[in-house]
Structures are given as C-alpha cells and as structure tokens.
C-alpha cells in the first residue's frame, strides 16, 4: 500500500489505494447430488489517483509484485494526465478528505472455516432433500455461498481503514412441471456466516420460506394472469425493500442528483414532501446483515442516514466525490464491487418505517392471504368487497432515476378476499414520487433481512433492507400492475 502511495507521489499525483482479499466457496446441489463445489481466493490492488488539478485516473491488477505495483501507479498517473489533456472533469474532494484511521472487527459469529467441506456438504444436502421429500416431483437446486471480503484502504496523507465483509446465503431454486408447463420459484436466506445452516431458528425460517415457495411453484402452474391495472395493494417486506431501493434509494445517491427526479438545480431537494407523514426511510449498515459494510470504499465510516423523516426528504447518500455537489453531507456511501472498480455512492440496508404499525400475532411467513384479508377488514383498512391484491416474494427490480420510472417483480399475486385467488406474478411499475405517497400502513414488526444484489452501472454489490412485515399501498394511477 505504502509503495503504491509513494509511487503515486513520485508521479506527481495523490491517491486512494484499495487492497481487497476475497475467500469464497460455493456448493451447488441438484436434486440430491453434488453438482459442483468451487473454491476461490483472490487479491488485488486498485490505485485511484488525482492530479493536483483534480483529474482522475485508475489502474488495478492482481499481480502484487513490487514491479507490478510500480507499473500500476505509473499507468494510473498517465491516465489521469491523459484525462486532463482531453478536458476531463476536475474533482478535488480527495484533497479535503478527513484524515482517519479506522479498524472495524469482523461481525461474524462463526469463522470462515468453521466447517470442513465434508461437514458442510451433508448440511446443504439435508436442506435439498428436505424439500424434495416434502414436494415429490419438484426439481430442487440448492446453492450455498459463503465469502469474506477483507479490505484495506489507504489515502495520501496517512488515512487508513481496515474492515471485512463476511456474508453467506442459501438459495433454493424450485422448478415445477406439468403437462408441458413449467414454473420456477426461489427462496433465499442471507446472513454473515454458517449460522444460516446451524442456528435452529434460522434453519426453520429458511425451511418455512422454501416450503411456501415450493407450494407456490406447484400452484402457479395453473394460475391465471391478473388483469393489468391500478389497484390497492398489500406487499411483503421483501417487496418493500424493492420499493425503497428502486423507487427511492437510487434517486438520492449523490452521483446522480444532477439528473435525478429528486434533484432541483443540481442539489437534492431537501425539505420536499415525498411520502405520507407516517413514513420514514433509513439506510445504514447492520452488523450480521448480508449487505453489511461499516466503512466506505474511500475509507470513510458509513453513517446510518435518516433519508426521509415523517414524509419529508431530509438527507441523501453522499460519498466523498459528489456529496458536496449534491448539497448533502458525506455519509460514507461509496461502495465498489471489487478492487478493480471505481466506487459509487450506494445503499447498504434500506428500510421503510411506518408509524403505529398494526401488530401481527404470529411470524409473518405463517400468515396466510386469507388471514391478512381478515386483519385488514378488522382494522378498517379495506372495505368489504373492495378490490385489493397482495404481492408476495421479491424477484428484483430496476430504475431510471432521471425519469423516476421504476419496476420490481414479485413471485405471486393474490386477489384478497374470504377465499383468496392466486395469480401469476406481474410487474409493479411506478413513479418515484407517487409510490412512496401511496404507503398507508405498516403491519407487523420491522424485518430488514431481504437480500439481493444491486447492479448499478454494472457493478454488483450486496444490498438488503425491508420494512414492517407488510405495507399497505393505496391505489394510484401512476402505479400499474402488469398482467393481461
């Protein structure tokens, strides 16, 4: 690290050096048989430099010999100078960055190598077999992935940050087939370590989720499509994570504020009413979470940010290089997929909080659509005979922050009533400024472990979040559910 900084200085530039080491393995089991086990270890260095005029260049590599590091630093400096020659954009934020030394211990409970592979494979296979036996005829693929990223980030001037990001996930992919039709559903449970496989409560939760998805795959084979339209909706917390992430979170990241629907004259529209007064939105790292990152990829501790407070936009997600331009504070939001990527402002764990949530009497995954309907009737949140649809299971989303168009997809749609009717999944398409205003109520406890991968500008980083177990959304002409 020091060699890279010294070499950068020798070439007349200042820099941020990122060292990343990754240890990872994945186990794939198809219908009771090991398909593949892959071991991976890697390390590399990214050198991001700035000329004193503020022009940036970047070089990275996985060969860390002295000669290679010197070459990398020289190439980064050359590119920064080339950038200056072509009239690139200046950014001098690095020179004003606070000087810090940060070291955060790993939040994992079980060490990376807590289990040998011989111990792990039967554990994963048990989960695969459990579902195969419960649902004969279903094809079951079980993937367990465990990794730990260790980061060391140094800046010219003496700042240094050391932290690690352990994570683990078990994903079950379930395919049902019947008379030439096929449907695939997925369940996922994420965390930081192998606790997913041995902590009884987590194992049971994972199994309950997978059973629900297996049942759904079978039932979806014959389910009709819903009629496209604008409806009153109930969504589960994983979809609420999608709503917070796609509809809102990306629009408050400092690098995109200049063109964001939530920007005004290049600055984030602080003070603007963006949601119902009962609604707040928070983003920040949670130890033990799939997307935990305590320090930014620029070496600045990550803050927990209350972005929306009682319906009003009060803050954004700012990184070192664009927070000031966006008119917001630096919150340590810079994240990178790897040492070979330039960090971007990103979310970690984003959640929607609603005041005075309605209490649930049992775990959310045990609540049936019919029980949800009864609860809504009891609470006066839906009128008898009123049309309302329940969207369950998050399958990913996408946003265009410039125009505020976003989508996310669900695993299933139920028309609620005394006897709920199952429909095929349909896209939830909305507009940023309408979607949050449509949130009317939260039901159940806060659940923040809905996990996924955010692919902003082609860089994949773990993301997570949630809300109360369920959110109720009023019908809005700018929210469309896709169907027939």
């Amino acid at each position, binding site marked *: 690290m020091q060699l890279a900084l010294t070499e950068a200085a020798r070439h007349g530039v200042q820099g941020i050096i990122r060292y990343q080491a990754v240890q990872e393995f994945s186990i794939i089991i198809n219908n009771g048989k090991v398909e593949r086990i892959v071991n991976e*270890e890697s390390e590399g260095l990214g050198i991001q430099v700035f000329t004193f005029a503020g022009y*940036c260049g970047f070089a*990275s590599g996985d060969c860390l010999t002295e000669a290679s590091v010197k070459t990398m630093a020289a190439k980064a400096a050359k590119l920064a100078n080339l950038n200056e020659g072509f009239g690139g954009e200046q950014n001098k934020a690095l020179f004003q960055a606070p000087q810090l030394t940060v070291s955060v211990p790993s939040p994992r409970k079980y060490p990376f190598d807590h289990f040998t592979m011989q111990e792990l494979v039967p554990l994963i296979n048990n989960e695969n077999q459990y579902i195969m036996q419960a649902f004969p005829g279903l094809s079951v693929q079980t993937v367990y992935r465990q990794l730990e990223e260790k980061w060391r980030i140094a800046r010219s001037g003496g700042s240094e940050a050391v932290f690690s990001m352990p994570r683990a996930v078990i994903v079950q992919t379930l*395919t049902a087939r019947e008379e030439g039709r096929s*449907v695939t559903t997925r369940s996922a449970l994420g965390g930081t370590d192998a606790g997913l496989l041995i902590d009884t409560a987590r194992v049971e939760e994972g199994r309950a989720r997978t059973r629900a998805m297996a049942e759904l795959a079978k039932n979806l084979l014959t389910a009709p499509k819903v009629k496209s339209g604008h409806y009153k909706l109930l969504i589960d917390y994983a979809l609420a994570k999608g709503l917070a992430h796609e509809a809102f979170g990306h629009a408050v990241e400092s690098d995109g504020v200049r063109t964001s629907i939530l920007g005004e004259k290049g600055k984030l529209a602080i003070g603007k009413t963006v949601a119902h007064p009962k609604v707040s939105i928070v983003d920040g790292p949670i130890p033990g979470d799939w997307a935990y990152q305590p320090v930014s990829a620029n070496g600045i501790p990550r803050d927990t940010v209350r972005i929306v407070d009682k319906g009003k936009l009060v803050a954004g997600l700012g990184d070192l290089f*664009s927070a000031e331009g966006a008119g917001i504070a630096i919150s340590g939001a810079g994240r990178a997929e790897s040492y070979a990527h330039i960090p971007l402002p990103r979310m970690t764990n984003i959640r929607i909080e609603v005041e005075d949530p309605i209490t649930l009497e049992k775990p959310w995954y045990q609540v049936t659509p019919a029980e949800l309907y009864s609860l809504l009737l009891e609470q006066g949140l839906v009128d008898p005979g009123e049309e309302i649809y329940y969207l369950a299971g998050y399958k990913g989303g996408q946003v265009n922050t410039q125009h505020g168009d976003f*989508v996310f997809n669900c695993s299933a749609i139920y028309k609620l009533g005394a006897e709920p009717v199952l429909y095929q999944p*349909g896209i939830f398409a909305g507009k940023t400024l309408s979607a949050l205003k449509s949130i009317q109520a939260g039901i159940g406890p806060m659940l923040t472990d809905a996990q996924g991968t955010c692919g902003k500008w082609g860089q994949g980083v773990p993301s997570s979040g949630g809300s109360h177990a369920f959110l109720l959304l009023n019908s809005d002409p700018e929210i469309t559910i*896709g169907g027939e």
Partner: protein
Amino acid sequence: MDMVAHLEKILNQYQYNPPVEDLRMQGWRFAVNDHTVIKAGIRNNKLGEVYAAPTLNQGCSGDLLIIWPGDFCSHVEVNPAVVNDLERRLPFWRQGAYQDPEGSVLLGSEPLPLAAVEHQSVKAYVREDPKPLFQLLNRFREELPAWGISSIQAGVQAGWGLRHVRTSQGLAVSYAQTSFNVYVLADGLYGKSFSKRRPAADVEVQELLTGTGTTVQKLKNETSLESGKMSVVLSPELVEEFVAKYLLSNLSGNAVINNQGAYTLEDFGQGKQTFDPRVTIAVNPLKPFELSSYLCTREGLPARSQRLIHKGKLVTPYLTVKDSIKAGLAPTPLPQGSGLWLEVEGAQEIDEMVQGIDHGILVCSVLGLHTQDATGGSYSLSAPQCLKIEAGRITGRVKTVISGNFLQHLADSATGYAFAAGENFPAMRFDTSVVQA
C-alpha cells in the same frame, strides 16, 4: 513469473511425481485469461468524470479442475495469489473434493478452427495509444446535441489478452483475443451499443449516433394510447435480450438434465416442434469478430457452429462434456456471453414491418427483464420508452406495461420478423396485451 507455465509445472509434478502420494493427481484442466482492459466514459456530459475516469485493469485468472484418484474433483478459481501458493492449498482442496465420474472426463488435442477473434487496432488501443477511445467519446459530446440531446452518458472499452487452455491429456491452446464495446445513453431515454472483437467502423459509429439521436427525438413527443391487445414490435436489441433471457437458460444442458428448464431430454430426443418452422436457434462461435466467438471452449472443445433448434424443432441442448455424458449426447460448443443466434426465414425490412401496422407500438426499452421467470416463458414488463404506431406511421412516445409469453411468440406462425441495418438480430412483431402506464 509466467503464471500459466508455473501452473502447468506444478500440476505435472503432482500428476507424475508428487511429493506426497496422497496428493497424486489423476488429471487436470485449466482455462486462464491473461487480460488488459482500458476504458473511459462520459457521465452527466462530463468526460472522465470521477466515476467514469479512464481506467486500466490487468488480471490473470481462470478456472482449474483437479481430478484426484477415484474421480474426485476440485474446482478452483486461479489467479497469481493462488498459483504462487498453490502447493499449500492442495491438501485443503483434496480434502474437500467430491466424486464426479462424469465431470472427470478430459479432452485431448484436436485441430482448431480458424476464427477471427483478435483485431490489431484494438490491441493497439490497449497496449500503445488509447487516445482514439477518448476521441470517440468526444465525438459523442460534439455531435449528439444536434438532436436536441442535453444529457449524455457513454462509455468505451477495449480489451486485449491471451487465453490459455490446457489439459493433462495433452491439449495445449493459447491464442490472443480482443474486445471492443461502446455505448451511449441520451437524455435517460434511449441508448445504443456496439460490442464486437473489432472497433466500430465510422459508418457504425454514425449509425449509433443517428439511431440514438433520431429515436430520442421521436420519444420526446408524448402521446396517448388506448390499452388493449395490439401489435407490438420489439426492437432488434430487445429481441437479443429476450433470446438471451428466455432461451439461454432453457437450452442449457444442465437445466434440461435436472428438469430445471422448459424442455426435457425426451423433447430433444423426439425433435419436438417447439417453435414456428421459420425459427432456427444456433450457437456459432466462428462468426468473425463477434464477442461471442472463440477458438475452443474452456474444456478444450474446438469451436463450431451448432444448431440447437432447427426450423422450430429441438435438436440438442448446449452441453458441457459432463452434461453430454449424462445426457448420452455429444458435447457442443457453448454460448459465450449471450451467444445465441436467432435465424429466421422470410424476414421483412423493418420500415416495411412498421408500415404494415395499423395500431401498435415499437418497444425501444424495457425495465425488469432480469426479474422474469424464463422457464415458463411469460413476461410482464414496464416499457417506459415506446413509440406509438398508427396507420403505419410513428406518432409519438407512450409509456406502457406489456405482457405475454416469449416462447409462445416464437411458436406463433403469425409472428413477424424484420431486419434493420447494422443489427445482428431481427425485430419481432406479435400481438399481445398492452396497457398505458
């Protein structure tokens, strides 16, 4: 250190003269890419902005399969850090190996085809002078405002590297390959890209600019639409994305064998008529300078053209050596990247197709394709950038939600296909449900 030579040396040692008998290898195979990529971009109209700064990435990485006695396998990702310390790791990998008789079959040496996968100009951008990449981006900044475009996001990247494939059966292949990619997104409304193993010719850059500029102009004129079933035209770029989404996973041999796709092995065995007879789907890694082209697979199978669906009938899934043994079929070339080609008979010109539509939309982009379930073929998508077609003319932009079943569209004899200049894929026309959003 030459990583590939060092890796070969250690593997040969552990196969023929291991220091510890327990670590004797039955065989091995690796495929490694030693690559350098240079890129630059424009974000928010600014060339070389901090998030799109000029970047050079160098790396040498790939996958290694070690086969231990008794057909036990270890799959490992290799890179300089791993190879430098390989011998310390071997006992751990040996301990964690799993038995996989079908996965233990290695290929030997076979004659390789000729395929153009390296372009000297791209190599020069990477190894000598990257300025032409910046000049290309500057051209976007200078020319796109002429179409009234005020917000430009763009990127260009060039890559050069050596690909090495080796097996303990005597297969030893090394060859150079290049990659070139450029994209532009204008006003957050519409963009186009160019990806091949050669640079874009001037006429292709001009098509990229003109196609983007004229489409954005049309998209700025908003109009309305009455929801209902109507003619929908998917642009060639979208057809490519739909084919990758819905066919790549369903034609995977591994998915077929494990009952995780839309088709079964019996379907292939019977040559089941799945799509309209005009439709052929192929893997073709021999097309000159296509990004999906290569000389041999990572397992060492020589590249060749292979139809997976011919005149609408299932021929074979694409199969690794392991999956081919399980399926009782021959291994095939594998799609790289999207890598599937849609060939259709009787395609029109795209202008002719649009002129023939009385009431419909031309879909320019969709949101949410990656969230769809490929196995069933159905889709429900937001299409915020569509052009309304009335009496054969484009009349303005509409935002819609579209839904249907892509596999059924390919099966439908009423589906139309049309080619557009400079596009690898045809546009597709079919009737489906459209709702104004």
